[in-house]
């Protein structure tokens, strides 16, 4: 039996717009994945602690506040610091095109912009998580 893919969907930052995060959570569920959803306004520290306890394969970060350049790389850095650098991190939200190269260089594997289909996200996770 293959192990189920486990994903943490988290909302760092101070915006409370979680519809996108919930839609993605639901789509991943319908694709057979186990999704941990932790609600709005989580600090990078909380997100990483949760990811480690839950031993997730991937973290999806949603941010609509504009603070993604600070918060997304912080999550990746903390994961590395805790020895969990193998967790696949992707992001989504209102993110200007010019910010994407910087985020990718910081270790965010992919950025999904408004209009991206949930199928793209599902396919991306399936292709890129390292399941045991």
């Amino acid at each position, binding site marked *: 039996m293959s192990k189920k893919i486990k994903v943490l969907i988290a909302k760092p930052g101070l915006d409370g717009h979680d519809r996108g995060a919930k839609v993605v959570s639901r789509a991943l*569920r319908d694709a057979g994945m186990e999704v941990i*959803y932790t609600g709005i306004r989580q600090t990078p520290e909380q997100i990483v602690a949760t990811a480690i*306890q839950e031993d997730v394969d991937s973290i999806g970060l949603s941010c609509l506040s504009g603070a993604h350049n600070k918060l997304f790389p912080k999550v990746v850095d903390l994961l590395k610091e805790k020895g969990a650098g193998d967790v696949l991190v992707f992001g989504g939200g209102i993110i200007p095109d010019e910010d994407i190269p910087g985020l990718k260089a910081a270790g965010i594997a992919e950025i999904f912009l408004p209009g991206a289909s949930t199928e793209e996200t599902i396919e991306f996770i399936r292709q890129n998580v390292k399941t045991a």
Partner: protein
Amino acid sequence: MEALVTGLLAGKVRSLAKAITIVENDLPGKREILQSVYPRTGNAYLLGITGPPGAGKSTLTDKVIAHLRAQGKTVGVIAVDPSSPFSGGAILGDRIRMQQHALDDGVFIRSMATRSHLGGLAKNTVDVIHLFDAAGKDVVIIETVGVGQDEVDIVRIAQTTVVVMVPGLGDSIQISKAGVMEIADVFAVNKADRDGADKLVNELKAMLEMVKAEVKPEIFRTVATDGIGIEELVAGIFAHGRRVEESGLVAEKRFRQAENELKAYIYDMIMERITGLDGYDDVVRQVAAKKMTPMTGVEKLFSGLGLPEEA
């Protein structure tokens, strides 16, 4: 694997998390891990929290964690949510109510999906409890899925089972029904600031008057969102544990829990061997085609295992 077990026994977060993944998913190494940690188990207090969906189990769990932490106890939490019967996926959302503890080293929360296991728990819940126990958690809280009437597996595991009730879900006949209502060691009437709370408490009291058990459940009123009644509830939980210890029922309870755990392993082992038999698919096909009765099929399969046919 040895490093993982050493880390787990030393209470290391990442070792415990990885070990849970192996045990939860029946991955290679599971047996070795459980064999190594088993002698180190039996110290944690196992607390079950169950009740209907929306009763406030997660919020109550959150407040109970906070109270236990204030007492200096370390806490492990297993939060079970249902898997989709269609996709097999799940949204595990119990943690939302418990994120205030995310950065507390003394609290380790793990979500588990039922993966179509019946009874209100995930299949390997007991094994995961052993890991928390061996990792030195003083209390392990098991929050079941939102239950209806018959998901009562928690009582076979927990030392104390709290059934969370809320006003307005049904009339007194619901309270008289068998199942979940019978497994409570402690009742928490949550959302006790709402209309109907007094009525619910009275109906529970009336029901309990007819209970003949040596140790009768106590009823506590709580408003989990405001932290009201939590101190009394936690005291009531441990008081129940002490009463069970003193009553001499504890030996019987442990015997039954051990038996249930053994039975689960026996079932798994037999199933694995039977479904691995060469003739297994053929027997299923014959039963499907109505050429063989299920009873004859079982006898054939058992004889294939080298076991007597009259099994």
